[in-house]
């Protein structure tokens, strides 16, 4: 067997090995119902802020606890405890991605990404409204 063959085999083995080694740490994007099934396991849930509930953040009590409610893709809403100071712009966010797991009836998030409306869309929204008053 030639040395180059051995190297190629090692290469393929290393590639497959590296994929499998990290495959187990890959999380899943799920909705709240599915996250309930895997309670305690890390997963990702995307959705939008449920504005029917206030965003609770009392830094005097705990500076790293933010509580809010979020709708997932199916429309289910759940109470979310985020282990971070309140991210700026949370109230105006367009979409939220949470990384964390379900604990009891709550979703405990360790990390959160959000998309804020680009100003463009926001202004478009304003433009569509009837409150647009020209300075005639």
């Amino acid at each position, binding site marked *: 067997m030639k040395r180059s063959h051995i190297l190629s085999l090692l290469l393929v083995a290393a590639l497959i090995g590296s994929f499998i080694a990290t495959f187990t740490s890959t999380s899943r994007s799920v909705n709240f119902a599915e996250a309930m099934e895997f309670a305690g396991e890390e997963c990702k849930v995307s959705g939008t802020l449920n504005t029917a509930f206030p965003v609770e953040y009392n830094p005097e009590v705990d500076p790293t606890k933010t509580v809010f409610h979020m709708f997932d893709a199916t429309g289910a809403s759940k109470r979310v405890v985020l282990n971070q*100071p309140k991210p700026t712009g949370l109230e105006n966010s367009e979409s939220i991605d949470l990384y964390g797991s379900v604990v009891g009836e709550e979703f405990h998030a*360790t990390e959160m990404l959000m998309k804020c409306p680009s100003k463009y869309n926001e202004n478009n929204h304003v433009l569509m409204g009837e409150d647009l008053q020209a300075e005639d």
Partner: protein
Amino acid sequence: MEYIGEWTGIASFGQGLIALAFGASFVSLVAFLCGWKSVGRKAFYVHSISTFATIALIFALFGAHRYEFEYIWKHLNNEMPMRFIFSAFWGGQEGGFLLWMFWHNVLGLVLLRSDSKWHNAVLATVAAIELFLTSMLLGIYFGNFQLGLDPFLLLRDAPSNAGLPWTARADYLTAFPMFQDGQGLNPLLQNYWMTIHPPTLFLGFASTSIPFAYALAGLADRSDSSWMKPALRWSIFGIGILGTGILMGGAWAYEALSFGGFWAWDPVENSSLVPWLTLVAGAHLLLINRNRKKPMALFSTYYFLLISFLLVLYSTFLTKSGILGDTSVHSFVDSGILPQLLVYVLSFVALAHFMLLRLTAWKSAFGAILALLLLVAVKGYVVEAIGVFLLMLVVTSVKAYRSDFERTEEEESIWGREFWMFVGSLLFLVSAAHITWQTSLPVFNQFLEPLSPILAQWGESWNNQMLLDLSKHNLAPGTDLDQTYHLVQVPLAVLIMAVMGLAQWLKYKSTNMKTVAKNLFYATALSVVGTGALIWAYPFDWWELPRVALLFTALFAVFSNADYILRMARGKWKQWGSPVAHVGFGLVIFGAVLSTSQKDIISQNQIGDISTLNEELNNREDLLIMEGDTLSMGPYFVSYRDRYQEGIHVKFRMDYFDKAPHTYQPGDVVFFDGMVFEAKETHEASPQFSDDLEDHWMFIPFPNERQAKTAQLWKAGVPGNRLFTLEPRIQLNEQMGNAPEPDTKHWLHRDLYTHIKWGRVSPPETDEEGWMGGRTHTMQVGDSMLVGHTLMTIDSLRAVADTEKPERGLLQKDLAIAACVSLKNKERDTPHQPLYIVRDSTIIPDLYEAEAYGIKMRIETFDPQAETLEMTVWEHESVRRDFVVMQASIFPLINVLWLGCILMAIGTFMAVWARWKTDTKSRPHG
């Protein structure tokens, strides 16, 4: 209808320029393919001039604040200082493409000056890339298919504004104030790093296309390997520029973003790193083959150079198509050009693999299947067609590898430099493949989707959880970076660093290993000592063994290459390039690993209500600090002095003091961990209480009154001299959301990084009389709570006696409970008695105001059994104290990383220069 005040003529002129650039690149491509050199050159000049004119025109529109253009309106506003005009220019996708094209044209013009036999073939590829890039700016619609984004698009013509009433008004520009000012640039991009990082990165991207072009030319004429010399120069140039660009991105993230580091394995960062890795591998294989009669690993040499450029395209696709969606913080949103980007990437992928095949029969088969797949894709089975296409690529590559390249039968010596350079290249490939895999999970999901039913069926019948998981096609990158990246990347880097240190001392063909072993003695000894010192100085855990191994081999690579410069290349400047670059790369890895893994978060959340959260969710990295308070943080005391606004920034002044040791006298009483201790003798406090406990302190199980009154929290030190002030800030941006920006104190051996996680940028909401808060707290007798400056304690509860009732304005039939509340601040300490009144089984709300303290309270409910009550408390704005939630961390030895970057850049340019000198000497027209 005539619109008033629009520069529609300019818009048409600009669109004309782009159309001209597009046409000229096409003519240039055809001419170079047909061998009409002078036509091709002229067309390329026309293309370059129109591209540069387009760029100049857009800058002029920025300068003139022409908000009728969508691109200007989206990326500029009246307030923005003109020094950010560059950042604004490449703030959007159109500008990004133009920047890329700019460099591509500059490089193309340099190549036009050469006169080698590869001239036409190389420039044909460059023109083809330009053709695709220019098409990204055409802005033409074919039904639903959008070809390019027009940078000269008028705001009123933008598809998202179609049909809005204002677009029908001729005077919209003057009638609505919102068209007299633009949207402004994302505050995160208003930064000088954003002025220099993108141009460097895009020059790096553009330079990968030249080795690609040379490799294609080499594939077309396989009998001549002289393309390798210029390709090698350009590859090393690309490594230097792209590497610098990537690390500048890291520096930007570190200085201006607030995620607390310079590298986060973000998909966007990753996708620019991957082409660099493969380009490094490709350049090293070129080095091997450049001077050999009988080639070695020829297929890999071509393949690595080809995929470096293809991966740049893929990176563009990932970041600009919107497919990453929300897995990345800084990817663009979908702008409707996904199909076009996909066509762009796949065309070049197909071209490269087509050229890898040598035999016409295979090439024809490849073309035929490709045409078939195109048909399938047009019918709507896009994902399926691409899936089959990818399989076809694998088959093509294997076939080309096995039979289409010249190969040598004799074995390379295991002690030759070639062998280890080849091994190093393979390691880079594995690293690149793994990062690509992790980054591509959203793309992978797209391929899993059509397979979903089959996978689910197999999963069920074989009872295989992994297949069932896959069938849900919902993979997302994990958030534990140790698991997702470091697990694989660290061991690979260990090997890469070891090979880098070893191979420098090996000779081509074969080496006497005894000499090598002798030569490597100093480097090995020094790295053993260095690693020992690190283990002694920093608290590494046993599971960090791979990390320590990486620090060891990185040191080995650094010392070995430095030693090589000192002993073997002294005075021979031309040989310095590679060892200097290797020292630099070793230092980058060393600095990155050490400063990240030994990052010391010195802010700790000390007052959090942690009991309500589970262990895992326990974030203790952020600290709340009140205005005027001084808290102990690592080796410092930190005080939040005040905040002030400067332009669009709210700055928070954080004073850092050194720690003066605190001396305890006999009889001093302290709390520690909920227990009370009394000092036995005079002593200076150690950093840890446990160190002092045995010798100097006496446990007091039942403190007497004096002890209970005087006991204070144990502290290691007291604030000494003020050392420096950091001013982390929050950038105000009404439209994009406020963005925090860190402030960092730099020393030679470490950085102190401070940023605001949460801070008030505007006064809190109050009612008309200035009261704020109004939160209800559940409290028990004995509980205390801080309201502004005042400590509020519920001492006891008692029933109001009948005799007291008249003076309190109560009726005899009333039931009333008084809470004995003591309020205590620096000036005074007084008792108060808010009431809870029940009259005829109705509760009479009783609002109690302690004017001197600026506090108002009301008891809402009362539970006599548990001795708890619910009380709402208001605070007056006049007594309010400001506070921030901050994070502070120390990055040790991070300057090693930046030093490494600089050395790596210098080394690569020395290598380019040396190659240029020798190549042009041996052949005047390289």
